[in-house]
């Protein structure tokens, strides 16, 4: 509506696009040129630099869903509903990528596509929760009911994560822990060059998240605007 602000935000989004692009190029260079090949796992270990950032991005996105859901139930403003929706969608997409790259990494290392590893299993459950969230959104009419229900599910779903984590961890405790992402946290037994590369890649994915969020939010607002104009047109005629 306001010409000036849209132009300003356009400029900002261009900066973000370029920044994201450049950081991604740097990350690519680091992953494929700079970082040395891991001794035992070979080149396939380079999957880590996209696998972990994807996982980080989806967890972060789900966390944002949680925060926005709380804010929505508190303030009842459509804004927060849009943010939660956009974040959930992006989260599910990157969660899917984690679930795809996980088995591809597991096959050459552990010899099977899928092991009921605690982390992979938790991710699968998380994916199911947020796919259900999106299904709930898709099946209800736009309006305050959909927003409220989705917000409740966004809160309930995120609070489930610690339970999933512990139950799945205790459920299967005997399988081999992957060496690079050991349960003691990132970095144990990792070289500095690997950590740096991972860091750059994490940055790139985080920037990508904000870029996608911006697009997705803008889209929802456009949709709202179209709805408003349609109604206006109907009543004015």
């Amino acid at each position, binding site marked *: 509506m306001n010409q000036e602000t849209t132009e300003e935000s356009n400029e900002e989004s261009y900066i973000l696009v370029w920044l994201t692009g450049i950081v991604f190029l740097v990350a690519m260079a680091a992953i494929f040129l700079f970082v040395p090949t891991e001794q035992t796992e070979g080149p396939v270990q380079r999957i880590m630099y996209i696998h972990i950032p994807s996982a980080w991005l989806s967890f972060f996105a789900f966390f944002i869903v949680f925060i926005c859901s709380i804010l929505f*139930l508190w303030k009842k403003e459509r804004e927060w509903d849009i943010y939660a929706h956009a974040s959930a969608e992006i989260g599910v997409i990157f969660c899917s990528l984690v679930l795809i790259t996980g088995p591809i990494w597991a096959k050459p290392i552990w010899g099977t596509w899928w092991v009921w590893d605690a982390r992979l299993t938790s991710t699968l*459950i998380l994916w*199911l*929760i947020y796919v*259900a969230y999106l*299904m*709930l959104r898709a*099946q*209800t009419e736009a309006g305050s*009911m959909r927003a*409220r*229900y989705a*917000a*409740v*599910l966004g*809160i*309930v*779903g995120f*609070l*489930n994560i610690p*339970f*999933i984590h*512990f*139950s*799945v961890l*205790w*459920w299967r405790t005997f399988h081999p822990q992957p060496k690079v992402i050991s349960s003691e946290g990132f970095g144990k037994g990792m070289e500095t060059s690997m950590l740096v590369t991972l860091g750059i890649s994490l940055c790139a994915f985080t920037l990508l998240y904000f870029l996608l969020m911006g697009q997705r939010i803008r889209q929802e607002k456009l949709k709202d605007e179209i709805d408003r104009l349609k109604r206006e047109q109907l009543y004015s005629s």
Partner: protein
Amino acid sequence: MNLYLNQIAAIVWKDFVTELKTRELLSAMFIFALLVILIFIFSINLSIVKASEVGPGILWVAFLFAGTIGLNRSFMLEKENGCLMGLMLVPADRTAIYFGKLISNLIFLSIMELFILPLFMIFFNIDLLSHLGPLLVVVFLGTLGFCALGTLLSSLSSNLKTREIMLPILLYPLLIPIIIGAVRMTGQILDGTELFDMMKWIGLTASFDIIYIGVSIMTIDHILEE
């Protein structure tokens, strides 16, 4: 406070009177649970696997599926004729409605489970009687978690067009911790483990129950709004 408890009691009483007249819910849940167990018996070879190893899982799958039917049915009663709206118009706190439905769901499920357990004992040739105390504790903890979350989500899904499908899709992923915990604990009890030796599982399920009852109290206002 007295009125609050009275209202909860009234909801439970109403569900019981309805059930005594129609006899639809308990019989449906019981038969369904029985069928689930039978299908599992046919689909696994009990001469290869040990009954006490697969038994707990089958038992809980039966409880879970039958319980879902119960939840769906329980909120369909409230949606028919707009009764839920009627409930929201009485001077009752929304949490009283939640607790009323939670308790009646819990009681119906528990009755169904009490009928299923002896059959389970016979079919799988497992001695439950010697571990009855701990077993009931575990069954109660699991069922409470199921009902706490299930009541919240079925009150939500009852307003959807596709409620029968959406309830399990929403509910099951969230229930996985409870399922894992309950199956593990039941298995360990059948192996003769004492309750004290599985405190971490009991802690997990108990805190699941408490947290989800708490979350439901905080969010039910937003679900029970027209």
